[in-house]
């Protein structure tokens, strides 16, 4: 079901208030009303319905566990909102461990004054994203802070998943010659956020690619098992930061082919105008995997069957020397080092 249709089916209930106030976080009647008629109703499942301080879960075997906080501004952006991001972000982190995400915790820190309609939209997005990822929100918390002490809403989610039985995700499994694959075009999310944050207008709207990646990683693990050596999602700092981290950890080098890296033409154009490098720009719905060279093409073909990974491509490989470094060859045959970003990318003057 598409998201807008989904939202239509979840109309907001009638509340006696239209903005969130400090009282909604005080644990009293208003908190109760907000949770009972709002959050619990919408996210209901057998674990959450117990209304206990925590959730009772049954998990067997090795589990993966990850947490993330979401402080994005603006809270709504083309292609998604903070709610969807908060589910997808943690689901994806668990999926990157080679696990099947199962349960999420959900905590809100809300700045007083947030419109209840916006809050409702966020909860609906969370419900939609959780159903799409096949995870359950089993415990949570809501706090409200004074006006000016937050930025509308912050969300923390923590996720638990069960390891895929065939997974062999470990940085130490990476060998020389392993191919590096990106699951889709890079830099789309970062540019989508920037375009709304800076009020930039482009002829084509650039939408964030935020999505859950757990079904894709599961399919790859089902098919290729431990021939997949690493999954990683290049969120903040982009592909450059993530690959530098990996190169440093594995004490091997990485060489990328500039022309193989998929970037949507409108994103590439926006990067040119804004003086930004797609390699350093944030992603949400993209992951990288390091795989045995023999399966690289098959992995790419498998990914390309799906809309959210239709531009998957092999972008480089692991080399023994240049330890800890990421290099990129450009079309002219020149090479350069892709450094770890120092801080956030700053647009150049001219």
């Amino acid at each position, binding site marked *: 079901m598409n998201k807008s249709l989904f939202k239509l089916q979840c109309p907001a209930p009638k509340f006696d208030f239209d903005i969130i106030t400090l009282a909604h976080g005080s644990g009293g009647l208003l908190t109760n009303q907000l949770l009972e008629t709002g959050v619990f109703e919408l996210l209901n499942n057998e674990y959450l319905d117990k209304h206990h301080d925590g959730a009772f879960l049954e998990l067997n075997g090795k589990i993966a566990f990850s947490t993330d906080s979401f402080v994005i501004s603006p809270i709504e952006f083309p292609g998604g909102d903070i709610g969807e991001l908060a589910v997808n972000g943690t689901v994806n982190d668990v999926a990157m461990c080679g696990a099947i995400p199962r349960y999420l915790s959900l905590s809100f820190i809300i700045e007083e004054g947030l419109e209840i309609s916006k809050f409702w939209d966020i909860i609906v997005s969370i419900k939609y994203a959780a159903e799409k990822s096949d995870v359950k929100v089993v415990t949570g918390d809501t706090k409200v802070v004074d006006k000016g002490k937050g930025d509308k809403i912050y969300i923390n989610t923590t996720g638990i998943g069960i390891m895929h039985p065939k997974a062999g995700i470990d940085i130490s499994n990476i060998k020389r010659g392993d191919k590096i694959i990106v699951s889709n075009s890079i830099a789309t999310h970062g540019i989508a956020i920037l375009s709304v944050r800076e009020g930039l207008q482009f002829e084509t709207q650039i939408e964030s690619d935020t999505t859950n990646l757990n079904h894709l990683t599961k399919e790859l693990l089902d098919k290729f098992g431990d021939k997949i050596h690493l999954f990683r999602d290049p969120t903040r700092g982009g592909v450059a930061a993530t690959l530098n981290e990996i190169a440093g950890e594995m004490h091997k080098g990485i060489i990328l082919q500039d022309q193989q890296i998929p970037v949507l033409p409108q994103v*590439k154009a926006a990067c040119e105008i804004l003086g930004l490098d797609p390699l350093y720009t944030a992603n949400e719905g993209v992951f990288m995997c390091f795989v045995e060279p023999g399966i690289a093409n098959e992995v790419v073909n498998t990914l390309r069957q799906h809309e959210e990974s239709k531009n998957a491509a092999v972008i480089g490989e692991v080399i023994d020397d240049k330890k800890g470094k990421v290099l990129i060859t450009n*079309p002219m045959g020149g090479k350069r080092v892709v450094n770890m970003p*120092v801080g956030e990318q700053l647009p150049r003057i001219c």
Partner: protein
Amino acid sequence: MKHLTEYRNPELAKKVLKEIEKTATRNWKIMEICGGQTHSLVKNGILSVLPENIEMLHGPGCPVCVTPLHLIDKAIYLAKEKDVILCSFGDMLRVPGSTGSLLEAKAKGADVRILYSPLEAVQIARQNPDKEVVFFAVGFETTAPANALSIIHAQKLGLKNYSILNSHVLVPPAIKALMEDPLAEIDAFLAAGHVCSIMGYTQYHELAEKYKIPIVVTGFEPLDLLQGILAAVKQLENGTHFVENQYKRIVKEEGNLEAQNIIEKVYETGNQEWRGIGTIPESGWHLKKEFEGFDANKKFNINIDKVPESEICIAGDVMKGVKKPFQCPAFGKTCTPQNPLGAPMVSSEGACAAYYNFRNMIKIIE
């Protein structure tokens, strides 16, 4: 992307590169004026494929690098004022002043905003009548029209709460100063394409003639740069010295007359301090008297002492092409992009930052 991919065509680039190799029979030192060109030379790996007898010198055309230290201190001082919104282009934020940077001031609570255009700052001034909005207007001729236009807009709107902290530098006087510096050894210039798109290149004929030096107006894509280098090498080998325009698709000899009119309305030339280089006569644009009300320098009483530059940093010599970044004792040791001592290490266009990346490359690729 039309007009971009063609200029990144590797096959064509290799052809031009071969022709450069064939044409150059001696050692030549060519200076690209603009930091954007330095950035592109490094990013596209051109420095690593040029023949050994062609040495590129990286000129002073990085606006971030040549903005005087005390002006950055002034910007930080203003940003910390209670009722000031300080607006700036992105890459000025990390430049170290004598005590911290704008980015640090922002972290401590100053209202510092990154903008893409000074016209956005005018908009912010309109929306915040109880605040003073200051735009940190630095740059070469390229950014001057928009900065001047922001003042014209502000004047039309009757805004009293908008001003600019101005540091505008000009290319032709800098070429003159470089040519008259006894230490500088430059055989040819690649003039900055975008500067010439505004100002044209009529002023450059006199310089080429006086100093008997080839000047090629050059763009920023790999093929642009290689064609610019080839044109310069051909002239050097033939013993000619005139102005050529490689960047014809953007630059007209007379430039952008409308933009020049706007600049002329608001600015007048005057002596200008360049960080690391010193004062160059008639090398800057200052606001005309009638626009003094928009000059943050005059509007606010900014009481800060001039702090001397780091004694170790050789940024000035680097920007004159006299020394290479790696000849600096601090290079890569106490001065890195994480902890820059001088501005050329901060901006990705700065020669030191470019060489810092490039040095890694030479070391590990060889």
